[in-house]
């Protein structure tokens, strides 16, 4: 007989101060050694289930909880969180906020130190985990200089070091690129082979094929459906779309790296020649490096032939009215490209030609607008309306209302932007971009944390923006999004343009 390790019995829950019942009479039993996926829309209660199992509910996030949760013999309600540390381990969504140490070694041993293990045993465990997870290269480094994928690998290792029986992953792939996601899959495989019980809450599905024993579909705080892993992955595209989930398999935009398409030194011939029309925009001489050789009294301009450039683009034509997906591995220059384009890097002296005018230096700031990955950084005022008005050269209330209506956020115009949901905040940022009359709209990974429904909305929005005459560039790791809305993909590798292709 199979032995159950997680048992959730008739649990209902709502957060303190909220009227929504987030979980509504849930019952779930998970057997030892199973790998289970929780999926469903945002707000369907996936994360809440994860928090129930690791005890953050009710011990850290307070609210009304009824029913019983038992994990590995512990009654969660009456167990202190630190007692669970050796039993349940959690990998969280955001790699940047789950570190306690500032260096990789310290992070891996942090958990075992907390539970008071003997130093020699801790070191043994560290060596074992490092070997299992193949992270030898990451040791002895500062966590702040690692890429998102590397941070997530360290997070997995540090959870592993506590040797938990149950491992929870809460949207672990959100901030990862293709390569890192594959690495994450390997880490899950390692755990699976060690016989751990693994529970994953996730929107991205393609990378989990073949790993899952069970799939649980959540809807409105209930477990709406359940399939075996094989059953789930043999569903048709229509069935998955019906469930409003992200697709099970995606086209391989990312497996070919740019190199395969072109020769690293001479650049690429595969750039589709988009005619230089007056409509679009032409980027000229975008060179940039984070490590500038200091000259004493003046700044030397970067040139094409400098070595170690983070961005090296002689000229690029961007067609008007198109959505261009910018792809490439983490840390390969996508963000640098966007930052230079909108003029955030002063040392990049590139020129943007558009509509018969050329824009240099600070003028580029007016021409373009970037919606950042973390939109919280770019909302400054105390109401949605004020936020949009702030972007206008002349305050125009009627125009503001029109913009807000067109984005479907008119009803929130007097609310504080920080009180809105993630997707709504993104719309507010887009609204102020429209108000600023920017021609170039840049998006830095707008859909990395979104479910299918919201991703679809963003996709439509990008298309609408493009058809209203803007040039839209979107840096993304989501092949789903590219399929949905991009007209071109632009691949960047080591700061050089790989290729720009039409999406068929």
């Amino acid at each position, binding site marked *: 007989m199979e032995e159950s390790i997680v048992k959730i019995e008739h649990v209902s829950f709502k957060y303190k101060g909220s009227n929504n019942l987030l979980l509504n009479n849930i019952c779930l039993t998970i057997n030892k050694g199973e790998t289970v996926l929780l999926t469903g829309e945002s707000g369907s209660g996936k994360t809440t289930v994860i928090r129930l199992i690791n005890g953050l509910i009710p011990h850290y996030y307070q609210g009304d909880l009824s029913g019983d949760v038992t994990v590995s013999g512990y009654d969660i309600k009456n167990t202190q969180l630190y007692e669970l540390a050796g039993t349940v381990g959690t990998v969280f969504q955001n790699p940047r906020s789950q570190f306690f140490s500032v260096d990789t070694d310290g992070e891996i041993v942090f958990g075992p130190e907390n539970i*008071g293990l003997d130093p020699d045993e801790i070191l043994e465990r560290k060596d074992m985990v490092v070997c299992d997870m193949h992270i030898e290269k990451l040791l002895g480094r500062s966590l702040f200089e690692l890429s998102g994928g590397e941070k997530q690998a360290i997070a997995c290792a540090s959870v592993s070091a506590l040797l938990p029986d149950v491992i929870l992953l809460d949207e672990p792939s959100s901030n990862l690129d293709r390569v890192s996601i594959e690495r994450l899959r390997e880490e899950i495989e390692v755990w699976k082979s060690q016989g751990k019980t693994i529970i994953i809450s996730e929107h991205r599905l393609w990378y989990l094929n073949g790993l899952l024993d069970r799939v649980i579909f959540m809807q409105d705080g209930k477990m709406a459906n359940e399939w075996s892993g094989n059953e789930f992955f043999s569903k048709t595209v229509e069935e998955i779309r019906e469930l409003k989930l992200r697709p099970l398999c995606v086209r391989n935009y990312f497996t070919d790296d740019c190199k395969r398409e072109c020769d690293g030194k001479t650049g690429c011939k595969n750039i589709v020649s988009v005619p230089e029309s007056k409509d679009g925009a032409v980027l000229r001489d975008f060179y940039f490096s984070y490590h500038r050789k200091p000259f004493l009294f003046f700044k030397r301009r970067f040139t094409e032939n400098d070595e170690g450039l983070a961005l090296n683009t002689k000229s690029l034509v961007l067609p008007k009215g198109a959505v261009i997906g910018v792809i490439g591995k983490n840390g390969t220059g996508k963000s640098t490209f966007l930052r230079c384009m909108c003029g955030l890097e002063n040392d990049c002296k590139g020129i943007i030609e558009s509509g018969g005018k050329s824009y240099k230096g600070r003028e580029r700031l007016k021409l373009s607008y970037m919606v950042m990955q973390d939109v919280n950084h770019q909302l400054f005022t105390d109401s949605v309306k004020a936020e949009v008005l702030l972007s206008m050269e002349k305050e125009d209330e009627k125009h503001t209302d029109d913009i807000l209506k067109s984005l479907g956020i008119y009803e929130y115009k007097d609310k504080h932007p920080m009180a809105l949901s993630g997707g709504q905040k993104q719309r507010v940022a887009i609204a102020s971009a429209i108000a600023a009359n920017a021609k170039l709209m840049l998006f830095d990974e707008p859909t990395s944390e979104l479910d299918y429904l919201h991703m679809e909305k963003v996709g439509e929005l990008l298309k609408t923006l493009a058809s209203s005459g803007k040039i839209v560039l979107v840096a993304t790791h989501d092949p789903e999004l590219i399929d949905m809305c991009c007209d071109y993909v632009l691949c960047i590798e080591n700061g050089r343009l790989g290729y720009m292709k039409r999406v068929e």
Partner: protein
Amino acid sequence: MKVKLDPRTKLYMILIVSALIMLSATTPFLWAIRIFITFIPIAFLIVEKRYTSAFVFTGAYTLALIMTFVLVTDESSGFLKSFLTGYSGIVVQFMPALIVAWYVVRTTKIDEFMSAMQKMHIPDGITISLAVVMRFFPTIKEEYGSICDAMKMRGLSLGGGNVAKMVEYRMIPLLFSCVNIGDELSAAAITRGLGGTVKRSSIEKLRLTVHDWMLIMMFSALTICFVYSKYFKA
């Protein structure tokens, strides 16, 4: 050459340097002691290969010292002179503490710091909060950078000429994101057993070495000389 100091020695350094800069130096001998203790952390920065910060600190401190002694005399008057007096006075007075603190924060791992505090029998509550503060500095810097970028993009860097707005636009997003990150950070830390009743162990084997004892004795001796020469040797 590699000298690894025990965090306890480093804390002692901070304590002594901050105490000494609070006592005013009146005679050349006292000045000599004060300048000497300032250059110890700078020397350690060089040992740790942090040449840029060592260079900047030396430059700023020397400049302020020269200004205090040469430019500004008792007869100096006028706006520029008084401004310079004030400026160099503040730098000379407080920079030593800044340098030591910088050195300590930059070279101490959080783990080391926590086990040192534990060895000194400081309550866990205090240790953990201080450790979180240390962990948070780089985060704040990162967040602040992104916020400044966002402001630049919207042409708000100067807050439309309004100083209050300038501060407001920076602080509100910064506070929001720090609160969020702090919340996630503590959730992640307690799921990994922080704050338990078990005595925390550490793989950092802290031992006071010869270097540590030498430094501690040197700092104590300097303090005694300073206090004696200032108050008792009239």
